[in-house]
C-alpha cells in the first residue's frame, strides 16, 4: 500500500506545486516592484519606499480622499454587505429548506436563475433606482459613514452588492440546512421552541462552517468589488470611493502609469485579504471535511 501511495502523493504535490509556483511568482513580482524604482523581470533596479508614499500623503492632491478614508469605506461596505448577506441568506434558506409554502419551488428556481443572470445588464435600471432612493430624505444620503442607501453612497453600493450576492448565499446556506436532520428540529419544536428559536438556537450553531464560509466569501467579494462601486458612485475622486477605484486613479490619471505605485496600492489592498484568509482557511476547509460526527 505504501509503495502505491508514495508516487501518488508525489504526483499530487507536483500538481499543486506547479500552478502555485506560477501564482507565487506573480506575488513576488508585485512585492519586489512595490519597493523598487524600476524592475527588470524579478530584478530590482534600485530599492525605494517612495511607492508607498500614498500612505501618508495623497498623490493626487487634497481634493481626493486619502487612502485611509478609502480603506474605511471599503471595510464598511464589505462588512455591511457580509452581515446582511449572511443574515438574510440563512433565514431565507432555512425557510426554503424546511417549510412548505406556495411558491417555494418557483422561488428556488428563480434564485438559481438570478444567480446565473448576467448582472451587468441590470446596472442601468439599478442606477435609476438608486438615483430615486437618493431623493428620499435621510436614508437616501444623510446617514453618517454610510452616506445613505442611494446613489453615490457606501450604503447604496453595499445594498446592490447584497442583491447580487444573495442568490448564491441562499443556495449555499440551503445546502447546509438540508444536511441537518429533521429530527433535531422536530425535537426542539416538541421541547417547546418557537420557529425562530429553532433557527437561532438549534440550526444556526450547527451550520457554523457554512456561516463562516459564506461570510469569508462575501467579505472578499465586497473587498475586491470593482464594477458595482464604479457604476454607482461618482467615481474615484468621490467621497464614497473604495480601494479598487482608488487603484484606478493611478492607471488613467497620470500621463505615464506608475506601475510601481500601482503595485504598492495593489499589495495594500491585498494584505487584509491574505491575513483574513490565513485565519479563516481552516474554517473554509471545514466545509469539505463535514465537521459533524455522532449525536445527530
Amino acid at each position: 500500500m505504501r509503495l502505491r501511495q508514495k508516487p501518488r502523493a508525489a504526483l499530487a504535490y507536483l500538481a499543486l506545486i506547479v500552478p502555485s509556483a506560477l501564482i507565487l511568482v506573480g506575488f513576488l513580482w508585485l512585492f519586489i516592484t512595490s519597493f523598487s524604482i524600476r524592475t527588470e523581470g524579478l530584478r530590482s533596479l534600485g530599492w525605494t519606499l517612495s511607492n508607498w508614499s500614498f500612505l501618508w500623503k495623497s498623490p493626487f492632491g487634497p481634493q481626493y480622499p486619502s487612502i485611509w478614508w478609502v480603506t474605511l469605506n471599503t471595510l464598511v461596505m464589505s462588512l455591511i454587505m457580509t452581515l446582511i448577506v449572511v443574515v438574510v441568506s440563512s433565514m431565507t434558506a432555512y425557510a426554503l429548506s424546511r417549510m412548505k409554502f406556495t411558491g417555494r419551488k418557483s422561488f428556488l428556481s428563480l434564485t438559481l436563475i438570478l444567480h446565473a443572470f448576467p448582472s451587468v445588464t441590470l446596472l442601468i435600471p439599478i442606477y435609476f433606482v438608486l438615483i430615486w432612493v437618493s431623493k428620499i430624505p435621510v436614508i437616501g444620503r444623510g446617514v453618517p459613514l454610510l452616506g445613505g442607501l442611494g446613489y453615490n453612497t457606501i450604503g447604496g453600493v453595499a445594498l446592490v452588492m447584497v442583491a447580487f450576492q444573495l442568490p448564491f448565499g441562499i443556495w449555499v446556506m440551503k445546502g447546509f440546512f438540508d444536511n441537518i436532520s429533521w429530527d433535531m428540529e422536530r425535537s426542539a419544536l416538541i421541547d417547546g421552541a418557537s420557529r425562530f428559536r429553532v433557527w437561532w438556537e438549534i440550526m444556526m450553531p450547527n451550520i457554523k462552517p457554512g456561516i463562516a464560509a459564506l461570510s469569508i466569501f462575501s467579505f472578499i467579494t465586497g473587498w475586491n468589488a470593482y464594477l458595482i462601486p464604479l457604476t454607482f458612485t461618482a467615481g474615484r475622486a468621490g467621497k464614497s470611493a473604495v480601494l479598487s477605484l482608488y487603484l484606478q486613479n493611478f492607471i488613467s490619471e497620470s500621463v505615464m502609469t506608475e506601475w510601481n505605485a500601482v503595485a504598492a496600492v495593489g499589495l495594500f489592498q491585498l494584505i487584509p485579504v491574505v491575513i483574513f484568509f490565513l485565519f479563516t482557511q481552516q474554517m473554509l476547509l471545514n466545509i469539505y471535511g463535514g465537521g459533524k460526527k455522532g449525536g445527530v
Partner: protein
Amino acid sequence: MKIIFKDLCKYFGRVKAVDNLNLEVGDGEFVALLGPSGCGKTTILLMIAGIYKPSKGFIYFDERVINDVSPKDRKIGMVFQSYALYPHMTVLNNIAYPLKLKKVHRKEIKERVQKVADMMGIGELLDRKPAQLSGGQQQRVALARALIKEPEILLLDEPLSNLDARLRIMMRSELKRLQKDLGITTVFVTHDQLEALTMADKVAVVNSGCLQQFSGPDELYNHPKNLFVAGFIGSPPINFISVSLQKSDGRFLLKNRYLQIELAKKIGSKAENNSTSSEILLGIRPEHITINKKEGIETEVYVVEPLGRDILVSVKLGKSMIKVLALPSFKANMGDRVRLNFNLDKIMLFDKKSEKSLLLDKD
C-alpha cells in the same frame, strides 16, 4: 391522559401513510405500535406530537381535539429513533433545554436536571457533548430530555433499535419499569415483535397504514384477527396449511391430501358459519405441534436446527414445509419418517379470500 384516534388519515401526495386509524390509548397505558418498515408508525407518532397535521380525522387528548394545537402546547416528551440530541450543547444543556424554554428558574433547572440524570444513570456525563457518548448513553440522555418536563404523554420511536443486543434486553425491562413507576401514557414504536410483546400493555399491529389488530400481547399471539397478524407475530413463524373444511355426519373435518383432522363441534360450526368457501387456511404455531414416531400425520424430516433451549425441526408434508419446535431430547435425522400431532385447542382457521380469522365471534 387518554389518546384517541378517530378516522385518522395522513397522505403524502398519493402515498397513504396512515389510513383510517381508530384507536384508543388509555390513561397511563403502555401501547406499542408494531409493524414492518414503512408502515406508518413514525407518521402516527409525529401526528400525536403535532409535527404532522392529519389529512383527515381527529386526534383527541382526553376529550379535547388537538389537531391544531402546536407541538409545544401538547405536553409531550419524545425520543427519536436517531435520538436527535443537539450536538452543539452539552448533555446538561440538552436535558435542560425544554425547561429553559419554559423559563424555569436557573436553580430549579439545575436541580431537576440532576435528578433526572441520576435516575437515568448519566449524572456523571453532564459536561460532555453528545458526540462523546456511547449509543446507550445517548439514548438515556434523549430519554432524560423527554422526561424532564414531566410530560403527560411519552412517545418513543424505536428507542432501542440502535443498541446492541444485550443493552437492548436490559433497557427493555428498565423502560417498562420506568413507565410503570411514572405512570405516563406511552406510545412506543417498534418493528421488533419481541419488544412489543414483552413491554407493552397493548399492541397495535399496523400494516401499510392500516390497523390490523389492537389487543393485549396474549390475545395477539393466541387469537390473531387475520393472516397478517398471525404471520407477523411469533418466531419461528406460524405454519399455514391449505385445507378444505368438510362436514359429514355432523362431524367437522379439515382435509387435504396428506392429513385429516377432526375439529371440535364448536370450532367447526363457527368456522363454517364464518367462511365463504370450504377452502380455508389452517394456522398452527411450531410449539403447538408435537412430534413423535408412533402416531399422527405422517411426514418426513427435512432439516433439524438446534436452538439451544429446544430444537426446530422442519418436516415435509407433501410439497409444503412445516416447522415444529421439539424438545432437545427428540432425536431425528434428515429423511426420517416422523408423525405430527396438532394441539387442537390452538389451531387457527383463516378465510383465504378475506384473510380474516374464522374463529372470531361475529360483531
